Every structure is written in C-alpha cells, then in structure tokens.
C-alpha cells in the first residue's frame, strides 16, 4: 500500500516506523528540515520537506495514486484541510488526527463529511476511553476495546452471590448486544454451551456493546460499586476526555491544572469536575487534599512528572495509580516502582492507524486465555466455504464465536445467530486452539477480497 503521512511528530514517526516494518511504502511530509533529515536517516521511508496543505507538495508525493493519506500534525484544522485537499486531488482514503472535542461532538455539522475525511481519530480520546473502562470496572482482570471503542471485552471473577450463579446460560436474560464468550474454571478456558452454568470464582469473558455493558456485568458481579473518587494531575486534552467519559454520579473527580487560564477553561467546560489550580504532585497539595484516600490517581503530564507523581501516590497508599507514559522504554522502570499498567497515547494512535488501513488481514490478540482458546481479528476471504451461511446454521462445526463485527457503514456490533458470513467482513472470532487452523482455513483468512 502507498501511504502518505503528513506530519513527522511523535505519532507520525511512530506510525511510519510500524508501517514500514509491516512492509508498506510510506511517504512522509513535514515542513521542518531538521526533522525530515533525521527521519530520512533513521527510517526506510521517502520524505518530502514542505507543507502538506499545499497541493503541489501533495502532488509531488503522488497523492492521486495513494491508498491512504493520514494527517497527524498537532493542529486539528491543518489536518482537516490536508484531508480535504488530498481527497480532491484523488487520494483513495483519508484519516485526520483531531484533538479538539468540538470536531467530534458538534451536533450542527458533521466535520468529517464536510472535509471529506473518512475517519477522524483522536489518540487522546482513545486512550481516555480505555482508562475510563478500567475506572468503571474495578473488578476487571483484563479489558480490551474493539472497533472504535464501541465494543468492550472484559474478564472478571464471578461473585458467588451474583445473579447468574447456578443458572443455565440459556435461561439467563442477557441484554441484546452482549455475549458470554468464555468461562475459565481452574485455569481451563472453554467456549460455553447453552446448558452450561457459571459458578462463583469462575473467570468469565464478557463481550458487549458499550451501552449495555454495565447491565451485562451486573449479572456476574454483586452490582454497584460506591462512589469513586478520582484525582487527575494535569489538564491535557486527554484529561478532558477522561472527565467526559466519567461524567456521571459514580465518580467524584478532582482535576489539578497548574496553568490558571487552562484551569479556568476546563472549569467552564467540565462543570461536574472540581478543577483546582495547583500541582497534585506537590506534597503540600497532596496532603491538603488528602489525595492518599482517592480510589484512583491519574497522571497526565510529561513522562517524568507522571512517573514521579505516580510513585509518590503509590507510596502514599493509593491502590490504583494510572500514569500516561509516551516512551515505551520507561515501562520497566515503572514496574520497579510497583506500577504494572501504563497508558501510551502513541501506541493507541498507531494502532488506530493500523486498523484504519486494515493492515491486519489477521491478528492474534494475546493476553486473555492460555493455550486452550484463541482470540483473533480477521477478514473473511472470498474463497471461504462458509459464505452465505448464518452463525446459527454453522453451529459447532467448526466451533467458533463471532464476538464483534462491523456492518456496511462501519458501525460495530455484537452479532446474533442471524449474522451471515460475507467475503471481506472483518470479525473478532474466538475459537479453540485445536480448531483454530481449521477455522482460519474455512474462513479463507488472508484470501483475496
């Protein structure tokens, strides 16, 4: 694929690196001469020095034949204009990085269609949405979000007093758009049958559309958690997104921002949040606000500040500390500080770009099951033997669960038994490790479109 990346900053260069490793041909445009020189020397890409919002620059990158143009500069408006120009010059598909919430939330105007952008993506938003899922589900063991964050997969331990315990699955009233994907008992994961029942202490894997997830989760846990108090250090755009994702009565949020003007701006926009014009990592402020008692401490400033603040918070007794770390190299350091999980907007951005490009005809998703089950993201090929059949008619031959897929216009959903297998459809599929090869073969994974 020929891909034009506009903007050689953090995200642009990280994307360029990943894409070239995957064998794509990348052209990167950036106006900064030194940056261009650095990238040309370090990456296997072609580079153009200049402004990507200039038609002549885009034409010299052969935009008319490009498979995708991705604008990743840190100015939203520039990205929109680049995509608009690229589309009118004949680029096949366009993607723009957007940081400002206005472009997502405006009800008056669909900015994406006005500027001929096929997809808007916001690394901050993606990361914040992931963080919000963790904060909403303190009992979860693992969380994964699929297809534009609309579908969530979680693993959690079943409470012995939960409603679902002891009931057969088929008699359990699960909400529409939700599904029990797997049951892990004594370390053995299995695909559940309709006659199976969960027991207390089992680990269940749940998949559900975002809005019905809480209802689904409450079948397996004891239900409500008390009000959680959350401290956020630093008023970055991702902090604002996080506050928006947590804008209900279940959360009591304090947001610390040092810059007075930014703090006032945030205070105006986020009126359910207590904005404080101080540094949360300052021990005096920490003590005054009694931050050692918060349920979660989120740090969204620079890597160094986040590491220090989270280490201090952890030391002070905060159970759940959530640092944002942009340099993956620092992860081991955090492990030494006792912090296992970090959030990286750069990785999220690259992942979003990859998914947009559909680089992955097939991808195995690790980290949920041991050897017995296999979770994969795949595209159905045109030679699949199952074309035209519905999930209900396929049944157990081969044994597979389709956890999520996209409909014609890209809206993700959790399918029921009436889903028909079509060539080119992207799906998240769970199957047993034994039959994984057979499933891949029957679906003609990686085959032609």
């Amino acid at each position: 694929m020929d891909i034009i990346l506009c903007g050689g900053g953090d995200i642009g260069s990280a994307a360029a690196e990943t894409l070239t490793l995957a064998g794509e041909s990348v052209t990167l445009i950036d106006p900064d001469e030194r940056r261009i020189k650095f990238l040309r020397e370090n990456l296997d890409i072609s580079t153009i020095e200049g402004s990507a919002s200039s038609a002549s620059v885009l034409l010299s990158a052969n935009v008319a034949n490009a498979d995708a143009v991705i604008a990743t500069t840190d100015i939203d408006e520039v990205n929109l204009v680049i995509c608009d120009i690229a589309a009118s010059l004949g680029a096949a598909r366009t993607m723009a990085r957007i940081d400002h919430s206005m472009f997502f939330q405006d009800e008056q105007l669909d900015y994406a269609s006005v500027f001929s952008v096929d997809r808007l993506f916001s690394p901050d938003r993606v990361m914040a949405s992931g963080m919000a899922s963790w904060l909403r589900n303190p009992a979860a063991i693992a969380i994964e979000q699929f297809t534009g964050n609309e579908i969530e997969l979680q693993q959690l331990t079943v409470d012995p007093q939960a409603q679902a315990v002891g009931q057969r699955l088929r008699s359990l009233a699960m909400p529409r758009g939700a599904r029990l994907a797997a049951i892990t008992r004594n370390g053995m994961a299995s695909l559940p049958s309709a006659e199976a029942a969960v027991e207390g202490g089992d680990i269940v894997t749940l998949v559900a559309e975002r809005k019905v997830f809480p209802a689904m989760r409450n079948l397996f846990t004891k239900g409500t958690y008390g009000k959680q108090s959350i401290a956020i250090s630093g008023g970055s755009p991702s902090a604002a997104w996080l506050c928006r994702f947590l804008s209900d009565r279940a959360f009591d949020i304090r947001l610390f921002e040092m810059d007075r003007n930014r703090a006032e701006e945030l205070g105006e926009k986020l009126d359910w949040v207590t904005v404080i014009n101080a540094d949360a990592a300052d021990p005096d402020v920490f003590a005054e606000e009694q931050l050692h008692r918060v349920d979660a401490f989120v740090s969204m400033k620079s890597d160094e500040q986040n590491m220090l603040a989270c280490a201090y918070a952890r030391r002070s007794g905060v159970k759940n500390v959530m640092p944002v770390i942009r340099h993956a190299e620092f992860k081991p350091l955090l492990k030494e500080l006792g912090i296992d999980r970090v959030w990286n907007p750069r990785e999220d951005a690259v992942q979003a770009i990859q998914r947009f490009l559909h680089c992955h005809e097939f991808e195995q998703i690790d980290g949920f099951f041991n050897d017995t089950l296999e979770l994969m993201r795949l595209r159905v090929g045109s030679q699949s033997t199952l074309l035209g059949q519905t999930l209900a008619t396929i049944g157990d031959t081969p044994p597979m669960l389709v956890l999520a897929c996209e409909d014609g216009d890209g809206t993700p959903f959790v399918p029921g038994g009436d889903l028909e297998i079509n060539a080119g459809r992207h799906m998240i599929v769970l199957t047993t490790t034994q039959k994984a090869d057979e499933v891949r073969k029957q679906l003609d994974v990686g085959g032609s479109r």
Partner: protein
Amino acid sequence: MNFRFVCAQWGKLSMLLGTLLAAVGVLFLLIPGEQGVMLDAAELSLLGSGGGAAVAGLIAWMVCKRATLIEVRPISGSSEAVTKPYRMSRRDAALVTTGAWVIGAAIAACPFLMWATLATDVAQDHPFHSVIDCYFEAMSGITTTGATVLSDIESLPRSLLLWRSLIQWLGGLGILVLFVAILPGLGTAAKKLFRIESPGPDPEGVRPTIRQTARRLWMLYLGLTVAQIVLLLSTGMGLFDAANHTFTTLATGGFSTRNASIARPESLSAEIVLIVFMVLAGSNFTVLLAFLKGRWKAALGDTEFRIYLLCLIGGTVFITAALVGHSEPLVLTNGTELAASGGESLRAAAFTVVSQQTTTGYATFDFDIWPFAAKAMIIALMVVGGSAGSTAGGIKVIRIWIALKVLWGELERFFRPDVIRPLKVSGHVIDHEQKLNVMTYVLGTFLLLALGAVIIMALEAETSGCTFTTAATTSLATICTVGPGLDAVGAIRNYGWFTDATKIFLCFLMLAGRLEMFVIFVLFQPRFWRGG
C-alpha cells in the same frame, strides 16, 4: 461634557412628552362628557402643560441643536470644512438620562398643579396645591413606584387619572427607550442611553441594532397592553378602569383609579388576569419574545425565569400557610372582613406576593395586619424584585442569584483556595468583572436601603412620630419602586403625610431605584465633572 448637546436632547424629550400630554387633553376634549364638548379645567391644564412643555423643548432644541454636529476643519486651506454628528460621551449619556427623568417628572407634574390652581371645585387642603406633592406624585408615577399622596383618588378628573396611569406606562419601559425607538438621528448614542436606562446583566449575545431592539420591546409592550385591556373588558371591568389598570400593571407601577387600590375587583377572573399580567411584566422581555417566537425550550430553560417563578410560587405557598395557620379574619383594603379559609388565603397570598415581588404594589388585602412571618416574606420578595430586562424594580432575581452563588463559592474557597469553579447562568459564564459589578450593586442597594431608612427616620421622627418599621419599609418600597410598605405606609395608607423634605428625598430614592443607582451616583463623583 457637551452641555449644549445634552440640552438639545432634553429639548427633544420635552417636545415628545408635551405632545403626548396635549394628545391626552385632546382625546378627552373629543369624548363628549355629561357637559358635552366643553373645555374643563383638567383638559385645559393638560393642553396648557403639553403646549408649554413642547414649546419650551422646541426653544431648547433650536438654541442648542448646533451642538449635535461638529465641524471638522481641514488642516490646510485647500479643502472645505465638513460637519459630522457629535459622538456622545459616557458622561453626556449619564447626564442626559438622569436629566431626562428629572425633567420628565417635572413635565408630568405640571397638569396636576395647574388643575389644582384652575379648578374651582378643589378643596383648599388638596395635596395638588403643593408643588412638591405634585412632583412626588409624578416621580412616583414615572418611576413606576405607585406611591401616592392622594387619599381621595376617585375625585380626580378622569383625564388626570388617565394621565397619571399613562406616565407609569411610559416610565415602565423607560422614556429613553421610547426616545430611542421613535426619534431618529441618535446613532450610536442610542446604545449608550439604552444601556444606561436598562442596565443589569444581559445574557443575550448577538442582537440587531439598538433601534430595532427598542422597537421590538415597544411592540411587545403594546401587544401586551392591548391583550390585557381586552381580557379585562371580557371579565366585566369598564373600559376606563381596564385601560388604567392595564397601563399600571404592565409598568409594574401600581396606581389604581380607586381609593382602596384594587380591593375586590369585578370578578375572580379579573383578579387572575391582573396576576398573570403582573407576572409577565416582571419577566425578562427577551424571554417573553422567545416565547412568542416559539422558542419554548430556550425560554423555559432561562435560569432567571425559573427562579423568578419559583420565588412567586414558594412565597405564595408560604404565606397561604401562614394565613391559614394564623386563622384571624382577612381584611380587604376597602374594610370588608373575610374568614381566612384556604381558598381566600390562597387568593390573598397569590395576589399580594405577585403584586409585591413584581414591585407593582396593587393591594387587595390589608397585609399590614398579617402575621409577622408573612410580612417578612413579603419584604424579602420586595428586595428580590422582578427579572432583569423587565419593567419591575428591586435588586432583580438574577443579581440575587449570582450574589448567592458567589457567596456559596467563597465558602468553598475558604478551605480550598485554588479551586476553580466558574459561575454559570443559563450556560453563560459570569466573569470576575460581572461578579464584582453584581456584588457592588447588591451592596450599594443594601447601603442605600439602610441609609434611606435612617435619613427618613431623622427627617420624620420629631415631626410625625414615624416608627422605624415605617421608615425602613418606606426606604425599601421607594428604592425597589414597589409603593406600599408596612405600618404607616401600609396597603391602606398613603404617602401624603410625609414632610416636604422627606418627599424630596423619596423622589431621589425612587429615581435611584428606577435607574439602578449607578447613573445617579456618578453625578456625585467629582471626577465626573472635571476635565473634558
């Protein structure tokens, strides 16, 4: 300061008011009375005062109109001098506004004095023989206070009664708003005048020109007037009473054509019409315009409108409960006693709360003999007043709301000094400058209320044995342009017994209350007069 320019504006205003005066005279001349078409003293005084004011205004304008243009001289001798309109300064605007009201009240007072002098059947001790009493009555009218010096209102000729109501109607929306709406050639000066006369926090952002705004407000005002007259007629009230009461309801003024104020109107439906229109007159006119345009959601979502209604309903419920609990008979302003049944109490409470909070000041019941809790609630609602951008007085609901929110916010800052908690009203952020402005206004009003009470007490204590309750509620009832207070200025009393010095002072308080203080007090700031 450009005094000639200011005088020219006053001249124009004088002509406008004079013409109106004369028009009322002509109207009554053309209506055949019992004596047929005959010029009686009242009509003569209306025509005479009107003509006099118009002529005086014309002279002032002729003399000073050159100041409305300024000559721009060329630097070199080659080109000709050109003239352009004089751009009014803030100081000019402040002086024009205050002067307009002082002069307006004087013009409005002329027919009263002239009538008392000319008419043969007027008693020797009639208040209108006194210049100060006439001026007080006119000022009370034009500022929509509704305090009267008359004890026998019904003996006044109908033409003068109508004039008395009409000046309230004019003063309700503001004489300068009329000025801006009708007279051309003001340009940007119109904006300054408009803002000074109708100050207060203004949530609306983009507006058409100020002239269009003024016209829209007048159209709405006229529309409401016609609607209320028609409705009152349909409830059985006579045309003359309906018109007068409509004029004074919509201005939240409170002058009535009857000695006992409203007392018991013709029917319950008439009372309901009065209540509804008082509520409308005390609402922000931009909210009413939004209703008319069908923007229900925006109108109902307005914070001030909601709190205003909440105050009215809460006050009514509270006072109804107090009256029922008290279980003493209720006394109408005309002396009739009624048992304090639930329905009667509700009727009394609803009318009194609406009338007093919207600063109209009509009375049906003598609330002076009500239990203390009920009276305290009435006083509190008088201080709050109506909505900003209405014809009502008082501190205004929105200001009270902002002030309370600022206070509440300060409590949090005591233990969390760095917290940022923006104050929002109907989705708009109130910035520090506006907060300071509101707090200053509230503090200033309370200071003036206290100072007013003390000064009235000082002026009256020796001569008339005025109680402190009287002095305090007089101060409140004039500054908030309500009219009736408690005790010796209660619902069944009037202001006639005050000494002349007090009446002059009360004129000042009423004007300060109507123009929302600042513009009056800048005249006492020495720097206002110095330089330029």
